[in-house]
């Protein structure tokens, strides 16, 4: 079932064209990752999907029962607003403390319950934001650079968690990512954008696409094809063995 559909969507900021002719659809239980260079309009596409921006042309359709869990890249909270992680988890939605703690435990940050949101490191904040998005039990999970600031070994575990969440919640996942290596291993489909859609499809197809190769360079492109989970050991999100 289609969860989200873009039809020839365009967005302008004043006279500047941010993205144009963006068309794709996202099904339930599908992970679609948007990649592209800086300023390619990746976050703009997410914001359009979330209804934060309105398209200046084209159409965006969301299934009627859509319930969104959004993980922003960072939090715009002012330091003058005192907010603990626990309070943040229960902000604006009815979630029991138990469920909030379980969600935080899954991203390995339950111990931060009483800490101020503003005092968290980049990686800790990412984990809290993912937990908060997940605890809403969304059927559309929108993630803006979910592993930014997370250490290398934590990355794979977080992506593993994202695909677990997709299975449990039977939700569609739309995300932006820079980590090309992991993206290719963990996405069902990839949307490569640079103001417009360069290529779109299964990771294998995309990484062979000439536009993709020219965008990211030959070496990067080759690196993607070979990445698989080649760990011979288990580790959790925190990177401990």
């Amino acid at each position, binding site marked *: 079932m289609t969860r989200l559909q873009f039809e020839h969507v365009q967005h302008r900021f004043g006279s500047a064209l941010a993205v144009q002719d963006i068309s794709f659809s996202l099904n339930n239980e599908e992970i679609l990752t948007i990649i592209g260079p800086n300023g390619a309009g990746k976050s703009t596409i997410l*914001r359009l999907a*979330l*209804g*934060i921006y309105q398209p200046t042309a084209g159409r965006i359709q969301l299934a009627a029962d859509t319930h*969104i869990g*959004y993980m*922003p890249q960072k*939090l*715009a*909270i*002012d330091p*003058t*607003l*005192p*907010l*603990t992680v626990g*309070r*943040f988890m229960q*902000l*604006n*939605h009815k979630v029991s403390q138990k469920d909030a703690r379980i969600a935080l435990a899954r991203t390995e940050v339950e111990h931060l319950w*009483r800490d*101020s949101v503003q005092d968290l490191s980049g990686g800790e904040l990412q984990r809290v934001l993912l937990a908060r998005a997940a605890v*809403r039990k969304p059927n559309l999970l*929108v993630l803006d650079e979910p592993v930014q600031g997370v250490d290398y070994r934590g990355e794979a575990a977080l992506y593993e968690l994202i695909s677990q969440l997709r299975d449990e919640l039977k939700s569609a996942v739309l995300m932006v990512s820079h980590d090309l290596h992991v993206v290719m291993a963990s996405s069902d489909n990839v949307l490569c954008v640079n103001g417009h859609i360069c290529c779109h499809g299964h990771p294998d197809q995309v990484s062979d696409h000439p536009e993709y190769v020219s965008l990211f360079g030959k070496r990067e492109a080759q690196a993607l094809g070979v990445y698989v989970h080649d760990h011979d050991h288990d580790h959790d999100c925190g990177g401990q063995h």
Partner: protein
Amino acid sequence: MTSLFLTALAALIVVILLSAPLGCFVVWRRMAYFGDTLAHAGLLGASLALMANLPVALAASVLGIFIAILLLLLSKRNWVGQDSILGILSHGSLAIGLLLAWVMPTQLDLDALLFGDLLAVSLGDLLLLAPLTIAIGLILWRFWQPLLAITVDRDLACAEGLPVKRLEVLLVSLLAITVAVGIQAVGVLLMTALLITPAATARIWSRTPEQMLLLALTFGLLAGLAGMAGSWWWALPVGPSVVVAALIGFIGSAAIKRKA
């Protein structure tokens, strides 16, 4: 004298009950200058009210809401910074208010509007203030979570389905009404101080928004009582006494926190 004093005390408490929660939002959203602008616009509202023979609080509220929404719209444009737009509207409306007061046949009590005249608050005024306070309190209670959510992160709140723009209009409207009502009792200068100082003091000691709200109420009421006490025993002017009491609370809190 005693009943006059009690009426004044009640009016001050009512204004503090409104200004403490809205003051928290003013601090969180960095709207201190915004509140100041609304207070200055209140002077224009008072002039217009006298000309049209309307209740001052009503005219000032309507004008305040109008200016607040104008500010919301203008803040989306990027010609000049928000602070400049606020300064233009703030002093522009103040100047229009002063000009109107100048050409008006009836005298506008500028001193009362700038510095407040709590002892001039009548029982009738108070009977008007009380239900208004309760209404605003109930609205704040009902919309506390969503208002907080749009303050924490606007995009996140929008993505989670909150009507962000309408909530912003609601918030600035409540602020405009509070300021309009408040300046009648406590004056333009004290109004801004009552909004910001107790909330800023509360920030020093709180870890959650709700703690900050309760502490802002506490510090505001303490400053109000201290100011009234100064007026009762030493015949000091109420307005400046309250502001000084609130200031002492803030500096004291900051000093203790720094040591700790």
